[in-house]
């Protein structure tokens, strides 16, 4: 059953107005984990990064794994949303915002990891190009500096891409709220009124940004992949890494989006907005990405195997048969063997089905990042220097903290902002002609009531 515009407004503003105990419990739990993670980071900064499990030769471990993972997750939102916007896919309307939010938060979290992993994190600002008396600037030949530029560009773009369409919704909240909320939302809505000029500029801007942000998104994860591909490390130094990482990023991003949507649907009672069709469509996308991912993994492994370079084969075999094989095959299961049947069979492509597949994919993609980083580092060239890696509680706490942090930010965001773009949803209704007349009728009835009220 189609909802009326006012019903939509009411449904979607409900999370903002009513606060259940569950919300507080969730915030407290998630917040506690985040606080623990901050404490762990403080401990690490105070004692030295030795409290992590990093060691020679595995100088990058959980932190960089999480960095790549979260940057990958961030490809769910802005990129997908931008593509769908440009393609003018009508079913996108309830999905775009909750996707874009993932981008902004995942990107912020991901961008924290390079700082967390630094030996001297208090000097991280040296990556920023600023003039100093020393006249030494960042090294623009370093992929880490590219990361800095790429991630910040993507972050700025994504924040804009997320926030601009929120402004009309904030204006709506402003009109509906009272008290301090009215004041806050009044400021947030920047004085939005909804003149045709504003609407038109907004839509133009969104189009331009959608065009600009897609290549940025692709470049971001390409550059993240170059952190690895630029180093002459066995199985890193590969040209396939750019597209491989982007595909993986979108893959994990969609999975994250499906999980987020399912949670929103359940906890915010948005069953009428986030419908099975969305999960079905995203499920198909996920299926496609799963196949694509499998293809990339195959291509990566095939070229290594065929090339038969001994140093690469050392890494190859340690992941296929050696110490890292259990993780590797778990990854293959999570990323392909599990989601493929679920997503390929229509009967299984339900909400539950896609969520199960997505959880597998998220876990699998995390493993994939880990398996790209650690086995290569632990089996570099000269066998005398091979080594192992085992994370400590510090790394695990910080990692748990980022997952909790993501959830916490999402919970708080959905508390402050309508998680589905109200005006865009209404626009969608408006564009369906059948609904148009029904809506008009409804408005007339409402108008009659209002007129009576005004008269008195």
């Amino acid at each position, binding site marked *: 059953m189609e909802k009326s515009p006012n019903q939509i407004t009411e449904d979607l503003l409900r999370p903002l107005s009513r606060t259940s105990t569950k919300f*507080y419990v969730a915030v*407290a739990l998630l917040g506690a*984990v985040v*606080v623990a993670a901050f404490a762990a980071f403080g401990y690490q900064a105070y004692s030295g990064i030795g*409290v992590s499990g990093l060691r020679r030769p595995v100088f990058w471990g959980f932190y960089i794994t999480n960095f790549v993972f979260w940057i990958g997750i961030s490809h769910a939102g802005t990129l997908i949303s931008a593509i769908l916007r440009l393609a003018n896919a009508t079913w996108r309307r309830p999905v775009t915002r909750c996707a874009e939010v993932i981008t902004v938060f995942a990107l912020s979290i991901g961008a924290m990891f390079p700082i967390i992993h630094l030996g001297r994190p208090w000097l991280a600002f040296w990556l920023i190009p600023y003039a100093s008396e020393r006249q030494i600037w960042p090294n623009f030949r370093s992929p880490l500096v590219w990361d800095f530029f790429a991630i910040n560009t993507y972050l700025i773009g994504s924040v804009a891409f997320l926030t601009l369409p929120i402004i009309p919704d904030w204006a709506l909240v402003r009109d509906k709220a009272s008290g301090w909320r009215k004041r806050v939302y009044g400021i947030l809505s920047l004085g939005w009124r909804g003149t045709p000029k504003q609407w038109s500029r907004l839509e133009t801007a969104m189009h331009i940004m959608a065009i600009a942000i897609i290549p940025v998104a692709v470049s971001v994860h390409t550059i993240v992949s170059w952190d690895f591909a630029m180093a002459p490390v066995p199985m890193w130094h590969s040209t396939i890494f750019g597209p491989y990482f982007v595909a993986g990023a979108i893959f994990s991003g969609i999975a994250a989006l499906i999980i987020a949507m399912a949670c929103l649907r359940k906890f915010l009672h948005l069953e009428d907005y986030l419908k099975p069709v969305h999960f079905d469509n995203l499920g198909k996308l996920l299926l496609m990405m799963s196949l694509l991912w499998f293809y990339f993994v195959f291509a990566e492994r095939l070229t290594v195997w065929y090339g038969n370079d001994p140093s690469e084969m050392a890494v190859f075999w340690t992941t296929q048969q050696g110490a890292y094989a259990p993780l590797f095959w778990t990854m293959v299961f999570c990323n392909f063997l599990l989601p493929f049947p679920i997503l390929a069979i229509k009967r299984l492509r339900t909400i539950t089905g896609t969520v199960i597949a997505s959880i597998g994919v998220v876990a699998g993609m995390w493993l994939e990042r880990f398996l790209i980083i650690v086995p290569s580092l632990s089996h570099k060239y000269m066998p005398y220097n091979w080594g192992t890696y085992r994370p400590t509680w510090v790394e695990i706490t910080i990692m748990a903290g980022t997952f909790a942090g993501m959830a916490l930010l999402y919970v708080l965001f959905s508390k402050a902002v309508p998680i589905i773009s109200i005006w865009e949803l209404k626009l969608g209704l408006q564009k369906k002609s059948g609904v148009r007349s029904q809506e008009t009728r409804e408005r007339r009835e409402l108008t009659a009531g209002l007129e009576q009220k005004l008269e008195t």
Partner: protein
Amino acid sequence: MPFSSQRKWIVAPLGVGALGLLIYAGSPQSGAQRTGEDARAQVSPVFTPAHRGVLDAIRDFFNRQPVPVQPIAFTHKVHLANGMQCTDCHTTVETGPVAGIPSVELCMTCHQTIAADKLEIKKIAAYQARGEDIPWQRVYAYSPTVHVKFNHAPHIRAGVDCAHCHGNMTQQTVAVRAVDLNMGYCVSCHRQKKASLDCITCHF
């Protein structure tokens, strides 16, 4: 649509704090840390935090050094006005990396007789009598974290005037940090004099 404004929200930050503490305390860190500490005790306590305290760290970050308080109100002005040269006391400045701070013995070679009745000189004599040296405080020091290996001799040989970095000592009593010897200062001079700008010239 009524927006409720209950005070339930207070629960959230409090809960965050309390649970955070709980999780932090209960996390396996205590165990891991203990083994780490035991290792330090047994093998070699090689590991300490980078700085002695947070304030220390912050001070270091902003490159702030404490203003030295000298035990003797030494006056460069008078000594230089009396025709002494820098190298009379800072004897190794032309031959070694360090200019050298004179020991109490050197002071007393002259002050055995000269101005021996002055209060400050008596202090010096007292040091000598106790078998102690004057605990001069460093004025120009690089923090160990900047890893500068400054060598006086080549600069003197290249004709750099002492005053260039130490200010006009004929006007100073106890030495004060007249020039902020940051890297920009060094680099600009090295640029002017076409001296090496290679990082490893100074940092190693």
